């Protein structure tokens, strides 16, 4: 597998402009002769499908939900970044580019990040034209907030539902094309195989989740925008259906998987309340602006928080980071919380969680001010946790939230399989080892609206794609494979449920490949996961048949892939013998618990090649060079 | 298609037709109640009013002409109103073939559920009412041209009066939800003042109902009508 990033030559500011000129164009009259499959209807997939249809290509789009509008992008709350500099506070494309490279702890590709910052402007214009009701000032102009510790106010938002509004804008553009007959939408269809013919991605095999029918779809090119894999941890802030299946199937067909160990843990989620917990709910990080994080000093202290005197409380973040205190960065705050719980000082019924206390803030500012700042968040907390955060401190705990790793792509967002393009959270993206808040929506839309439609055109225009149909042997074989797997799942008829096994996988990864990792733990995980996978294939029980809606069967398929993928994740984490962003190796930290990068040996993207289930994957490197942003270490002292 | 006829095409359009015709009927009912209040001012005034209805528009229109125009409009309104009601009712039936086992009606007011049956009873009432006070077929002693006499004599009968009073309940509900519903259907909507739409609909409905009920009660209680001699021996073979 050779990795050619195809980064255009020239100064960083001109690369994309120059590249757009160098790309081949498809004659407008010929566009409808080309067909494209887009898997995913989130911000990336929805935008790509709609835009390519507008350009005239024949597009078919797939999602596993009952409507493209329900893609997980809908859940994004905080906002979307753009270097509009509408606040005149010194923002610029270059600053957004710089912040993103630095925030990614110098593990992203400069050229891509710059393009992302460049395109951020057009995204906001496009969204507003579609009628996305962003927050506005009384003058009628757009409002901005500063997000995730950014020094400038560049985040655009629509109440707490920015992702929803952006996705609906994108969904409406997509529905417009569906109505016009230019996009064929396949709801409740799950991609279960990628079909590669003569070394090019030529189609997919899907299962119709209602009828169970296994279908082949052929096209001249395939685009995957299937989101992230945080659900490998079982408990995450992602929607229940989020999966690695599409990406993993592609990986098994030859697409390199980059940096799978880069996962982001969000520090302020609601803690799990018990074994029944099925997913975790995110609470906005802004809460840390006024809340104080603490745990009891003594282990197993079960007194209600109100009865724990001041001198028996440990405000550990303020203790460790006197200057940053409770605003210490996501990864640091998360790791410290887990330490406390591991020391047996966790709080709440499950002992998993730490307090986020507003008592002092309420005394200082008054209840009204706090209510005005966080009212809706407090209500949400009260509804879920059943406690009144104005009286009892909130309980929070870190949760897997976002995955920076993904299928490796070149500057054209094409994977190592010609014709297979990847956008959004599913690719290894522009975020390096750590994503800044409000940057994922930006990336998904940049990929979907402005990059993929052009780079796909270039790929198609270069020709060499011969006409085939779904009778081709490769499709038959892929259908066979899917049918086989499905039959297998249904025939095992063991003792354990899919959820039960998924929970166990999650626990293993959370323990050994979560916020803090070390060689010994990762090796343990690398023994436990294959064993669990074996048990799965012998002892899982998937009821019913494949002839109609069977959610257990869907989940089984996704878990089967997580059980293979989880192993790769640990491999990568073990191999990356440094700490970088979301990947924290306990062996590599400064005395104050800071991630310690090793730019000497690891200033590269690790791209893994699949060699067979249970076989050691083969690593390829894309060396990363930093010509514009000088390598530097973060410090929060 | 454009213009009023185009309204018939869509469900929303049909509702707009219903609202318009409904409001016409509404206007009649209110005006009719107000007009009838003159009964408290004695025979002359009342009969003069009844006569007035007929000579209205004079000399431009000949006697009764304009009244007929009004009648035709009313009749047309009732037909369109009912026609639309029936069509929409069938649509709503077809929209949920499989009923719920358990279903809480979360509607703002239960009046909205009485519209169809309420309407039908109103229709029945009007027919009876015409036979009673306009044509006199069901009137114990009907004197053509003496509206006041017919009025008083008519309500002297307990069952008839009770029937009138009873009929005012569905009417009131129909007017109450009808007006609020018409506000919505006609898009009379201003977030700053919307909170007044319901009370207003309620108030008008109450006024009409109380006004209408006052007539039979006034007659039965003898508050009015002592100037009309007890029914001169009605012959009932």
């Amino acid at each position, binding site marked *: 597998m050779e990795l050619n990033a195809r980064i255009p030559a020239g100064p960083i500011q001109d690369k994309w402009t120059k590249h757009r000129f160098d790309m081949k164009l498809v004659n407008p009259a010929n566009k409808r002769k080309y067909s494209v499959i887009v898997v995913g209807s989130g911000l990336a997939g929805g935008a790509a499908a709609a835009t390519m249809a*507008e350009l005239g290509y024949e597009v078919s789009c797939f999602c596993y939900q*009952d*409507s493209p*509008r*329900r893609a*997980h992008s809908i*859940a994004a709350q905080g906002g979307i970044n753009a270097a509009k500099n509408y606040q005149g506070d010194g923002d610029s494309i270059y600053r957004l580019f710089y912040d993103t490279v630095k925030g990614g702890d110098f593990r992203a590709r400069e050229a891509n990040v710059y393009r992302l910052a460049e395109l951020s402007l*057009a995204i906001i*214009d*496009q969204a*507003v*034209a*579609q*009628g996305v*009701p*962003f927050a*506005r000032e009384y003058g*009628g102009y*757009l409002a901005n907030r500063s997000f995730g510790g950014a020094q400038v106010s560049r985040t655009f938002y629509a109440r707490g*539902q920015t992702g929803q509004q952006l996705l609906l804008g994108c969904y*409406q*553009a997509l*529905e*417009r094309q569906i109505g016009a007959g230019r996009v064929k*939408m396949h*709801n409740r269809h799950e991609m279960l195989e990628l079909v590669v013919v003569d070394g090019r991605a030529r189609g997919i095999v899907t299962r119709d989740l209602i009828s169970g029918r296994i279908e082949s779809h052929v096209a001249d090119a395939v685009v995957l925008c299937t989101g992230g894999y945080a659900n490998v941890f079982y408990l995450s802030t992602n*929607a*229940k259906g989020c999966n690695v299946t599409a990406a993993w199937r592609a990986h098994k067909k030859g697409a390199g998987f980059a940096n799978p160990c880069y996962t982001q843990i969000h520090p302020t989620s609601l803690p799990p*309340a018990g074994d*029944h917990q*099925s997913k975790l709910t995110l609470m906005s990080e802004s809460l840390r602006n006024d809340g104080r994080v603490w745990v009891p000093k003594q282990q197993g202290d079960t007194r209600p928080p109100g009865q724990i005197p001041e001198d028996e409380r440990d405000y550990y973040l303020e203790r460790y980071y006197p200057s940053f205190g409770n605003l210490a960065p996501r990864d640091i705050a998360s790791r410290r919380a887990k330490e406390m719980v591991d020391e047996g000082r966790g709080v709440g019924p499950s002992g998993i969680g730490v307090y986020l206390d507003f008592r002092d803030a309420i005394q200082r500012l008054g209840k009204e001010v706090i209510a005005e700042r966080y009212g809706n968040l407090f209500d949400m907390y009260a509804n879920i946790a*059943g406690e009144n955060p104005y009286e009892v401190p909130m309980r929070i705990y870190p949760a897997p939230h976002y995955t920076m790793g993904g299928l490796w792509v070149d500057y054209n967002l094409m994977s190592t399989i010609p014709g297979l393009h990847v956008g959004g959270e599913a690719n290894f993206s522009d975020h390096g080892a750590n994503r800044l808040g409000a940057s994922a929506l930006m990336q998904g839309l940049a990929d979907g609206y402005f990059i993929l439609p052009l780079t796909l055109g270039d790929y198609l225009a270069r020709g060499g794609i011969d006409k085939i149909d779904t009778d081709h042997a490769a499709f038959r074989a892929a259908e066979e494979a899917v049918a086989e797997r499905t039959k297998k799942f249904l025939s095992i008829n063991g003792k354990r*449920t899919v*959820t039960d096994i998924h929970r166990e996988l999650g626990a293993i990864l959370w323990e050994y490949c979560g916020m803090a990792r070390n060689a010994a733990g990762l090796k343990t995980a690398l023994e436990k996961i294959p064993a669990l996978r074996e048990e799965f294939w012998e002892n899982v029980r998937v009821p019913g048949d494949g002839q*109609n*809606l069977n959610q*257990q069967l869907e989940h089984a398929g996704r878990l089967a892939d997580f059980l293979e993928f989880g192993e790769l994740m640990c491999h990568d984490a073990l191999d990356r013998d440094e700490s970088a962003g979301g990947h924290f190796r306990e062996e590599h930290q400064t005395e104050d618990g800071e991630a310690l990068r090793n730019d000497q040996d690891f200033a590269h993207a690790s791209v893994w090649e699949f060699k067979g289930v249970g076989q050691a994957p083969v690593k390829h490197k894309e060396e990363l060079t930093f010509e514009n942003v000088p390598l530097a270490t973060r410090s929060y002292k | 298609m454009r*213009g009023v006829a*185009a309204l018939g095409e869509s469900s*929303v*359009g049909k*509702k*707009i037709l219903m609202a318009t015709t409904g409001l016409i009927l509404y206007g009649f009912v209110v005006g009719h109640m107000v007009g009838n209040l003159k009964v408290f001012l004695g025979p002359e005034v009342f009969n003069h009013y009844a006569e007035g209805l007929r000579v209205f528009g004079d000399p431009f229109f000949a006697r009764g002409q304009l009244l007929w125009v009004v009648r035709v409009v009313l009749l047309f309104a009732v037909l369109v109103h009912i026609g639309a009601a029936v069509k*929409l009712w069938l*649509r*709503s039936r077809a*929209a949920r*073939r*499989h009923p*719920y086992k*358990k279903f809480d*009606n979360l509607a*703002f007011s239960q009046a*909205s559920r009485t519209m169809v049956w309420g309407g039908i009873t109103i229709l029945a009432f009007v027919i009876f009412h015409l036979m009673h006070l306009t044509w006199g077929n069901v009137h114990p002693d009907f004197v053509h041209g003496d509206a006041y006499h017919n009025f008083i004599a008519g309500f002297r009968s307990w069952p008839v009066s009770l029937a009138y009073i009873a009929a005012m309940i569905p009417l009131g509900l129909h007017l109450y939800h009808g007006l609020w*519903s018409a506000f*919505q259907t*006609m*898009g009379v*909507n201003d*977030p700053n003042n919307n909170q007044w739409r319901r009370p207003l609909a309620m108030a008008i409905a109450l006024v009409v109902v109380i006004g209408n009920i006052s007539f039979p009660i006034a007659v039965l209680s003898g508050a009015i009508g002592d100037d009309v001699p007890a029914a001169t021996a009605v012959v009932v073979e």
Partner: protein
Amino acid sequence: MNLTLHVWRQAGPDAEGRFETYQAEGISEHSSFLEMLDVVNERIIADGGEPIAFDHDCREGICGMCGFLVNGEPHGPLPATTVCQLHMRHYQDGDELWLEPWRATAFPVIRDLAVNRSAFDRIIASGGYISAATGSAPDAHAVPVPKENAEYAMSAAECIGCGACVAACPNASAMLFTAAKVGHLGLLPQGQPERYTRVVDMVATMDEEHFGHCTNHGACQVACPKEISVDYIARLNKDLRTAKIRKSPNIR
């Protein structure tokens, strides 16, 4: 806590359905309603049965995938709450619950509590958008929008497309859903050019999809997890009237 569930079971779109009774035992009051069903399902599977099918994805009240009636109320008894955000502490030990799918000709049952809501997508596809092809947009500040409009549009745009309004409506009408979109786009300057064609086309599709008409019951607003107001229905009605009666509604 322990509860008794009567759940609508239907093997497939064309199959006969019936209510089955299940015991939900040892349910934590901290679990969400769907987590309670997860527990019940785990039991059913262990006993060799087929679990209850219900749609869900985000479990955060935003994707609009979940939804069924609990004791006759869409999304259960709590205002402004989807069933995935409804927590069991709102029920008492020993409660008896009836779980029923949305019932509307336009929403055929797929299985158990899961229905097909694609009709909503077709309503949007027939006009619920602003035709702004990618790349055609002017600068976002080219057209200022009064804050009031942006906010009022946002309140309509919050619709999550769950279908509870249809489920709650005695006429199985999709007016609130449709009006929310017509209202959202019609309140913004960008939405004006297509304002009148949009409302006509979306209402036409709504009718074709076999939704009922609106008789202004208001149950939809009460059931709506986003508390979308029926005021938007009044707006739609007005726009439709203008569109149908005026020859060229855009030219005043």
